[in-house]
């Protein structure tokens, strides 16, 4: 039924003429059974029908035709427009008035109804579109959704979205095709460029017009005439006051008709929303880039500050001690000199640690520390790692490794460095009387290695920050040395090996650092 209504709406005048013609043909054989005035009444429902189906203008046509048909076929003398009885003149005029008024009333109602329907359809669609738009996080997802909606709403056989590259040139970001042949790529891009540059909607003329008007091709059209454009496709620039975000191409309708005014309005609304989305997205991108730059500047200066602190403190201490020893006016006995020298030695160790850490970090960040992976037993890595820890602390470390732990595919030196950093931390941040535990477990997805201490632990709000450069926990003041780089290096190394590092609370208190080395990554390499 809907298609019939659609047909009546589209070809209202034809429908009106057809209705009057058919009804007249039906009425003529019964001309002698009813009074001539009654035939006028018979036409009225037909006019109402036309008004209801096709709106005001066709109804007016139907009224006029009915007026003529009544006069011509039913008022004597028949088959002339001449009216013999002067009283019939009055009937004729009254009929015309009644017909027109009825047609107008019903037609207006009909027009309002169809407009309301269209508005509602439009509003639902736009609503859905905007809610989808909000939920789209990727540009590709947004483009796909936009084109689908456009094709669905307007009945276009295909659609495409052109977006701007960094250099301002357009590229075809996405296409959607329901039917038809699609659009030729090279010329389409040119027209899209033109539409974008001129900020004008551009229509590709229909094939039947193209032969004659090649000179004015493509045709520039504005939003008002869009609805009546008899085009194969439309290029709509997506532009705001300041910028051009892209161009939307909407192909011809699948049914071959041109776009209706509603379609055009809908298209423009959708285009506006898409434009707003694209602009917001671009601006957010710019803003976050600026934010990231600022953050990186801040980190850099924090880095320089911390580095100079880390390097200068032990250096200052060594300088002071050595120059003190060199002074003539003091009397140093042998024991005192030894004491000073051992302090210097400690400072130098610290300096060496700091420089080593910085070197490791910069090698990792510059990707200059090339991982040399091979299959190793975790135990042998731990053995070598522990041998680098001072003999005084070594006995505090306890191992709980399963016997059947499979070999892992890692860079020995790097993983060893990461584990050493975790162990040094665990030893430093827990009391001398407490052991530090190293454990491991194999699972289907990978191997977990953990280092656990029973110190004070790490408060929840510090857990994420301890992996940042130079961040030292609140309890760090009690620990004399430490560069604030150990965990950063561990994290970078583990990331470099394709794994992750995390920290949780140990029971009853303390911290447990877990390194996870995934399996599938290992086998793929």
């Amino acid at each position, binding site marked *: 039924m809907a298609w019939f209504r659609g047909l009546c709406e589209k070809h209202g005048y034809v429908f009106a003429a057809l209705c009057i013609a058919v009804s007249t043909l039906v009425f003529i054989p019964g001309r002698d059974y009813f009074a001539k005035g009654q035939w006028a009444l018979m036409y009225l429902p037909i006019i109402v029908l036309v008004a209801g189906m096709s709106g005001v203008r066709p109804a007016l046509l139907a009224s006029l035709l009915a007026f003529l048909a009544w006069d011509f076929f039913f008022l004597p003398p028949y088959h002339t427009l001449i009216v013999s009885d002067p009283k019939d003149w009055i009937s004729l005029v009254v009929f015309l008035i009644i017909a027109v008024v009825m047609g107008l009333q019903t037609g207006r109602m009909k027009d309002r109804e169809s407009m309301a329907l269209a508005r509602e359809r439009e509003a639902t669609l736009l609503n859905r579109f905007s809610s989808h738009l909000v939920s789209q996080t990727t540009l590709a997802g947004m483009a796909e959704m936009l084109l689908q909606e456009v094709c669905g709403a307007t009945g276009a056989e295909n659609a495409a979205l052109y977006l701007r590259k960094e250099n301002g040139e357009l590229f075809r970001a996405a296409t959607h095709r329901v039917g038809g042949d699609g659009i030729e790529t090279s010329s389409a891009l040119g027209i899209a460029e033109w539409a974008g540059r001129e900020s004008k909607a551009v229509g590709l003329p229909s094939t039947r017009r193209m032969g004659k008007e090649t000179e004015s091709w493509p045709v520039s059209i504005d939003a008002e005439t869009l609805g009546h454009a008899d085009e194969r496709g439309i290029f709509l620039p997506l532009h705001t006051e300041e910028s051009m975000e892209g161009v939307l191409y909407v192909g011809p309708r699948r049914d071959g008709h041109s776009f209706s005014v509603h379609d055009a309005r809908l298209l423009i609304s959708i285009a506006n929303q898409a434009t707003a989305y694209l602009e917001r997205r671009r601006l957010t991108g710019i803003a976050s880039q600026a934010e990231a730059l600022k953050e990186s500047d801040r980190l850099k200066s924090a880095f320089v500050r911390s580095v100079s602190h880390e390097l200068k403190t032990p250096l200052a201490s060594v300088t002071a001690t050595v120059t003190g020893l060199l002074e003539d006016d003091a009397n140093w006995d042998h024991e005192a000199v030894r004491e000073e020298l051992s302090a210097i*030695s400690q400072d*130098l160790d610290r300096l*060496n640690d700091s420089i*080593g850490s910085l*070197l*490791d970090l910069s*090698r990792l960040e510059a990707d200059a*520390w*090339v991982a*040399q992976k*091979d299959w*190793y*037993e*975790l*135990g*042998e*890595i*731990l*053995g*070598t790692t*522990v*041998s680098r820890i001072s*003999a005084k602390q070594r006995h505090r470390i306890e*191992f709980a*490794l399963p*016997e059947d*732990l499979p070999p892992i595919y890692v*860079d*020995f*030196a790097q993983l*060893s460095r990461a584990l050493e950093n975790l162990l040094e931390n665990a030893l430093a941040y827990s009391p001398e009387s407490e052991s530090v535990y*190293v454990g491991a477990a194999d699972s289907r997805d990978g191997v977990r290695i953990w280092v656990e201490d029973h110190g004070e632990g790490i408060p929840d709000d510090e857990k994420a920050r301890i992996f940042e450069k130079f961040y030292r926990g609140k309890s760090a003041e009690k620990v004399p040395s430490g560069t604030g780089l150990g965990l950063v290096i561990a994290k970078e190394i583990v990331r470099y090996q394709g794994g992750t590092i995390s920290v949780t609370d140990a029971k009853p208190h303390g911290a447990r650092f877990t390194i996870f080395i995934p399996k599938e990554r290992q086998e793929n390499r």
Partner: protein
Amino acid sequence: MPSPEPKSKILVIDDEEQIRRALKSILGSRGYEVLLASGGVVGLDMAIDSTPDLVILDLAMPDMGGLEVCRELRTWFEAPILVLSVRSSDAEKIEALDAGADDYLTKPFSAGELLARIRALLRRAGGRAVPAPVVSAGDIEIDIAHRRVTRCGEDVDLTKTEFEILALLARNADCVVTSRMILQTVWGEEYADDTQTLRVHISHLRKKVEPHASVPRYILTEPGVGFRFSTH
């Protein structure tokens, strides 16, 4: 502490003056005769003229790379070469060991570390004359002459190959022994590249002598290089 071999001659090849000065004072004060060369070319000449008992060679030198000097020296020079490297040049260090260097030290190092390595290397070089009779570390004791290994006073049953590996490592206690050297010594020249076999034997050996089942304390892996028997 046993006194060093009388008047062992040590040639230091390093382009950095501070390092040469420090080494001279450390070694000189321990009774060694110290020769200093400020570059690779000079160093090679001095080695020919004076035939030192040990060469300390810096890997990073401007005129002639330490690696090249090492290769050149090894064409005729048989005494130990100790290589000095920096932290970031692991690959170079491994190459140097392949090129015939005997051990390495990472800068900065302590005087104690340096002297321990030198003593171990000189002992190894003169080893045929004075075999180290018994090497002990923690609770294990290796009596090389009597082919006997004990742990906490109890005999450890080793296969012939396992014992030979352990004995080689123990004779070079606290020095790195390259996989190639172990393979050549224990299996023979033609097996020099069969590192996989070596790993399997090392794994068995560890199970027998190490106090902890999976974390070695004595037989440590030197990644990419070989193994080291640690007595500390």
